[in-house]
């Protein structure tokens, strides 16, 4: 009973601030002195050995798991190195070691979402200057992975937007991000990074979220078409590809949880109560590793039931994804065969345009994290649209090939391993 009494006081204990935090403090450990609970949990994002069916914190190798992806990214560095995200603690290490970084110059923009040093540097250098800087120069000033500074105001600890790209994207849509509610902020801090982006050429490598026409896959590709933006020319088919990058926020926005105003933090950072103190779990990870705190707050089903449902949803998305992928890979080879048979770029333009779209639709889901769970129906719908475009491209190519007297289906190569796929690409260079 003594302890019952003690624990009653717990509920009334005020939080004490030990030490003011400097405006641009990048060091998470410094913040951690004041907020040890949050910091301790944050440190858990170091863990890299958890695994769920489609996620978890181990560095899953997308290319090895499915070498056809190597083909789809032929012409881009994603065909060389593409891992699934792991914890925030590793963000800096991982961007430093990825083969996607170019030498001797790489856009500074690649640092924009990887470190708490970024807001400080941007405020010192200027935004456009930061993006235009050489990544390899910035490295010297960047030492801390993603952390407190990225999401919090050091004075009040309230959430704040530290990345200009999101503010600017809102402004372009005619919205003022300062009007966001508290609940929206619990999503928007994530939307600073977990979104589709591209580097605008002018001002140099300027980070932009392509939301001007809207967040849907249809709106985005229409935007890229209007600006005639292309990430790379596909080595095999010659199509102008836009690589989608983690449109997590955008896909989530079409789902039932966003519709019901459930934020990223509700699932990925559920509240915890320890000793009567309520705090936010800063161990950001797959919620499937913490179902009882994360989902069961709202869903009174058993953990098993929740897990089974999520996996059933994801299995369907994966099946639809692989189906679209199959058609897409073949479409690249079909167009290549047509090219080889002597068809002109003009004659091939329509198929290539279809493939450009098909691949962006596919990638909108594929590059999104969570294997479609964030919006189950929209994911399978988008994959159907992707499939249709890929198959239409193949039909056009087949008819063109026929014009040159080729009526058999092209031979599709064995893509059993990453190396085989890379060799194939080499042969098309």
């Amino acid at each position, binding site marked *: *009973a*003594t*302890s*019952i*009494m003690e*624990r*009653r006081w*717990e*509920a009334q204990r005020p939080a004490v601030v030990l030490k003011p935090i400097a405006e641009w403090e990048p060091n998470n450990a410094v913040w951690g002195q004041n907020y040890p609970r949050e910091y301790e949990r944050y440190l858990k994002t170091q863990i890299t050995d958890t695994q769920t069916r489609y996620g978890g914190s181990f560095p899953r190798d997308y290319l090895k798991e499915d070498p056809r992806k190597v083909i789809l990214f032929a012409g881009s560095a994603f065909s060389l190195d593409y891992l699934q995200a792991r914890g925030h603690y590793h963000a800096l290490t991982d961007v430093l070691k990825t083969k996607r970084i170019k030498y001797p110059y790489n856009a500074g923009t690649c640092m924009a979402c990887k470190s708490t040093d970024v807001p400080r540097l941007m405020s010192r250098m200027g935004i456009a200057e930061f993006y235009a800087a050489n990544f390899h120069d910035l490295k010297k000033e960047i030492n801390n992975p993603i952390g407190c500074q990225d999401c919090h105001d050091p004075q009040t600890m309230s959430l704040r937007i530290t990345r200009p790209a999101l503010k600017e994207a809102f402004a372009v849509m005619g919205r003022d991000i300062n009007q966001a509610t508290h609940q929206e902020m619990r999503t928007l801090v994530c939307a600073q990074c977990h979104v589709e982006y591209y580097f605008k050429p002018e001002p140099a490598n300027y980070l932009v979220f392509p939301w001007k026409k809207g967040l849907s896959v249809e709106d985005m590709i229409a935007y890229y078409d209007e600006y005639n933006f292309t990430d790379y020319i596909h080595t095999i088919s010659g199509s102008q590809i836009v690589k989608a990058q983690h449109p997590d926020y955008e896909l989530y926005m079409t789902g039932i949880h966003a519709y019901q105003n459930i934020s990223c933090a509700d699932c990925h950072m*559920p*509240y*915890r*109560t320890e*000793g*009567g103190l*309520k705090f936010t779990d800063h161990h950001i990870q797959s919620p499937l590793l913490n179902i*009882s*705190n994360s989902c*069961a*707050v*709202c869903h*009174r089903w*058993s953990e098993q*039931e929740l897990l089974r449902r999520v996996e059933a949803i994801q299995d369907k998305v994966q099946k639809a994804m692989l189906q679209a992928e199959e058609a897409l890979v073949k479409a690249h080879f079909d167009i290549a065969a047509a090219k080889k048979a002597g068809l002109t770029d003009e004659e091939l333009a329509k198929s290539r345009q279809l493939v450009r779209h098909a691949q962006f639709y596919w990638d909108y889901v594929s590059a999104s994290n969570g294997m479609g769970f964030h919006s189950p129906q929209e994911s399978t719908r988008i994959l159907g649209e992707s499939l249709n475009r890929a198959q239409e491209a193949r039909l056009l190519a087949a008819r063109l090939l026929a014009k040159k007297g080729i009526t058999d289906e092209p031979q599709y190569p064995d893509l059993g391993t990453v190396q085989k796929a890379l060799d194939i690409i080499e042969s098309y260079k």
Partner: protein
Amino acid sequence: MKRPAKYYSGLSGWQQYSLFIIGGVILGIVVFLIRISNAASYALDAPETCINCHVMNDAYASWQRGSHGQAAVCNDCHVPQSNFAAKYAFKAKDGMKHSYVFTLRKEPQVLKLSSGAVGVIQENCLVCHNNQFAMIRLADVSERTCWECHTNIHSRVHSLSASGDALRPRLNDAGLDWMKKGFENE
């Protein structure tokens, strides 16, 4: 698929009475403890009794603002109403378990009804709402609970952290006055 919703068939008569006695004895002997933990209130039906433990805060807040804040108190639903002995035996068993878990800080973040509790509550819904034709038929059914549809009895969201502290009424001070002074001096 659904959680098993067997009716609370009650402990056997023997268990009921011995639990009742043990519970009583414990409460009877440790007078000091009773005073500092507001234990006397446990024998009564006031909802404030339950929030002696802050672990119950969310349940309290969501009850108070739910559809029954004005209609029923905790024990109307959570304790068997069939007879005096059953009621107090259940209270004693429950109370002991709760204090044990609470004191050892073993409570989970998201509480769930124990399987025994489900039937007790379902029966209690009927105690008040028994005069309606279709519901009697529903009550025959052990696989479905009223609150699968009526999700607003507490609220949609269940978690120790779900309700802000502000929703919790101030309790009488716990402990003895001199103890409080002692702490204030620190």
